[in-house]
């Protein structure tokens, strides 16, 4: 375990009895199913999204096995199309979008603000059940025939193909409401439930990230909703908007779809960045460099992110003028992300760095996200995109940002807050091994795909030219290393739950409110009234409280 001193919280005995906490009281299954405690809801979301990650991950491993050889390896081409579609749908809608906000955010946000709960606790529970219903629709669609359109549901294929398109689209529609309600809840909570003394610029940066994400959730998701409704109606009733056979415009579908789905990727990454903004100062024992710059960059990413969706459509038939405008704006949206990366590095510079798992994951994030973000810029350049679009280069790019970025940040946050959520420390040695396996496996799998793509390997293809096989095989082996790392991580995390409570209030010596209360917290969060006495990254020598 870490060998740095634990900061004295306001009332902390050396070893306290935490047997009465939000997990143990109140008791019974019904008390969980009808809970309005944000911490319990967060935990229920956590198991749900981890389950989704497992399912989506199994599909990924199956895909990579199929791609070991150019011809049929373990599945037919039709099955392959369904498997990559389901991998995408599960990962995007059931895992990544809810993961950090709904699982970690729900748990941590009110604690960080010094609040007793979110603004609308019953809406929070409703949001969870809506997620469950959406997930059930999705699973039903999977087992009753599946979908082979790709997670992007492009028309006219999606309006004319057989398969469970309407049911899967209905699932995504329902899941969208879960996301919207979470966003509404977080914005209201952050506006109205901050502790006394906590102005906007005394909030932890995690909160700024959650706020920016919530803004995107509220403004973008409804457009996805109406897009999916229009898709279902076009499919069933031929309303004439997207299907070219009856005078519709398939490019219009892409506009509708990407108006949400591009901001959606910022719903995915901004929470990840928010976690990194917490972890790096804590494990550098140094205040964050450029607090306001990072705060404003979160908001800028959220807003400018709405202006760039056409960069997914450069070869779709979109007009040249529109493409040029979107390309220019895409370059702009990279700037705030760059600001953050430099500020995080500056925070680490001359800090007292310790390398526990959360920090190892955070450092991994810096490298992997930099690669992912940079390759996004390559793709944003029109002339380059003509060659790289719809190749494995794109696949590698988005896996670097979504997995190398968001999932790595999620793992960082999961390890960081694990002691707070469950009252137990995980096995640090195994965690470091797991991080190493994940990092190595990830790069083996996906860096290879940059090379594959730039040499012409198209995405979503079942067959491929023989010359690509060595790289595909290497990528598949990488996926096994990655999978091993993730299974190891799941193993030691779950094993830690069998231990007795052994986590102190503040194992990392951090300075935000959630570390001032017991691990795990009591139902009402604090047994005192939180009042802000110091900044969230105040690592100067301890003043007498």
């Amino acid at each position, binding site marked *: 375990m870490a060998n740095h001193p634990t900061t004295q919280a306001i009332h902390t005995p050396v070893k306290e009895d935490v047997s009465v906490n939000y997990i143990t009281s109140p008791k019974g299954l019904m008390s969980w199913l009808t809970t309005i405690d944000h911490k319990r809801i967060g935990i229920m979301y956590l198991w749900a999204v981890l389950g989704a990650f497992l399912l989506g991950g199994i599909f990924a491993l199956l895909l990579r096995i199929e791609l070991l050889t150019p011809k049929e390896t373990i599945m037919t081409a039709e099955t392959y199309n369904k498997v990559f579609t389901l991998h995408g749908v599960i990962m995007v809608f059931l895992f990544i979008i809810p993961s950090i906000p709904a699982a970690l955010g729900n748990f941590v946000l009110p604690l960080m603000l010094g609040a007793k709960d979110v603004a609308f606790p019953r809406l929070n529970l409703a949001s969870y059940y809506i997620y469950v219903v959406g997930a059930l629709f999705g699973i039903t669609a999977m087992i009753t025939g599946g979908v082979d359109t790709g997670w992007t549901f492009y028309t006219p294929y999606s309006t004319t193909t057989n398969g469970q398109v309407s049911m899967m689209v209905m699932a995504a529609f329902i899941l969208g409401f879960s996301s919207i309600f979470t966003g509404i809840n977080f914005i209201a909570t952050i506006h109205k439930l901050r502790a006394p003394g906590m102005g906007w610029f005394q909030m932890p940066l995690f909160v700024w990230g959650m706020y920016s994400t919530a803004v995107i959730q509220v403004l973008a998701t409804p457009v996805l909703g109406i897009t999916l409704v229009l898709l279902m109606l076009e499919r069933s009733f031929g309303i004439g908007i997207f*299907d070219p056979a*009856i*005078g519709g415009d398939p490019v*219009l579908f892409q506009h509708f779809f990407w108006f949400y789905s591009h901001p959606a990727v910022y719903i995915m990454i901004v929470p990840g960045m928010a976690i990194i903004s917490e972890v790096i100062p804590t494990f550098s024992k140094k205040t964050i460099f450029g607090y306001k710059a990072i705060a404003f960059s979160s908001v800028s990413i959220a807003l400018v992110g709405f202006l760039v969706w056409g960069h997914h459509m450069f070869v779709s038939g*979109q*007009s040249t*003028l*529109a493409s040029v*405008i979107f390309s220019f704006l895409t370059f702009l949206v990279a700037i705030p992300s760059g600001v953050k990366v430099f500020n995080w590095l500056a925070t680490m510079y001359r800090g007292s760095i310790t390398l526990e798992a959360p920090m190892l994951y955070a450092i991994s994030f810096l490298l992997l996200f930099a690669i992912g973000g940079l390759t996004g810029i390559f793709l944003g350049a029109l002339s380059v995109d003509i060659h790289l679009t719809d190749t494995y280069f794109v696949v590698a790019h988005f896996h670097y940002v979504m997995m190398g970025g968001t999932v790595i940040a999620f793992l960082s946050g999961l390890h960081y807050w694990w002691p707070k959520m469950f009252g137990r420390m995980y096995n640090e040695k195994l965690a470091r091994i797991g991080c190493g396996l994940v990092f190595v496996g990830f790069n083996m799998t996906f860096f290879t795909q940059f090379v594959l793509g730039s040499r012409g390997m198209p995405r979503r293809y079942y067959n491929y030219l023989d010359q690509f096989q060595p790289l595909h095989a290497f990528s598949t082996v990488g996926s096994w290393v990655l999978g091993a790392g993730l299974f190891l991580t799941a193993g030691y995390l779950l094993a830690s739950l069998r231990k007795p409570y052994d986590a102190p209030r503040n194992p990392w010596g951090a300075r935000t409110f959630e570390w001032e209360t017991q691990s795990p917290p009591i139902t009402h969060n604090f047994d005192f009234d939180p009042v802000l006495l110091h900044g969230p990254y105040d690592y100067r020598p301890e003043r007498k409280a």
Partner: protein
Amino acid sequence: MSETTHTSTHDNHDANAPKIYAAVLGALLILTFITVGASKIQFGSGMVNVVIALTIATVKASLVGLFFMHLIHDKAMNAIILVSSFIFLGVFIGFCYTDQSTRDDLKPVGLKVKVPAVAGAPAVPGAAPTGAPVAAPPAAAPHH
């Protein structure tokens, strides 16, 4: 404390409120008449009529928002939320319209199938001649 002054401002506000609401309703009804009247006059290109209709609609919407929905007395955040949604809607339609109106219509030279006429597109071989009655669109591709 500040609560007493708060209450007295509210008392004034409460007493006058019904009159203000009635006046706003009157204005809204008048504007509705104007909208219908304006639609009967041709202001040059169709675009101008649309702009006029939308402008009047926005004035009506502003009255409803400011007075019926109390934005004029509320904290600014609520108005910011409302205006933001319209701004982003504007972004959506603006970029889509820019794309649609600046596209080149690419049609393969040897195309034999009837292509639905699109506004501004050059004449296409095989398109249905205008003026003849056109039946309801053919049944879409078989759905599962």
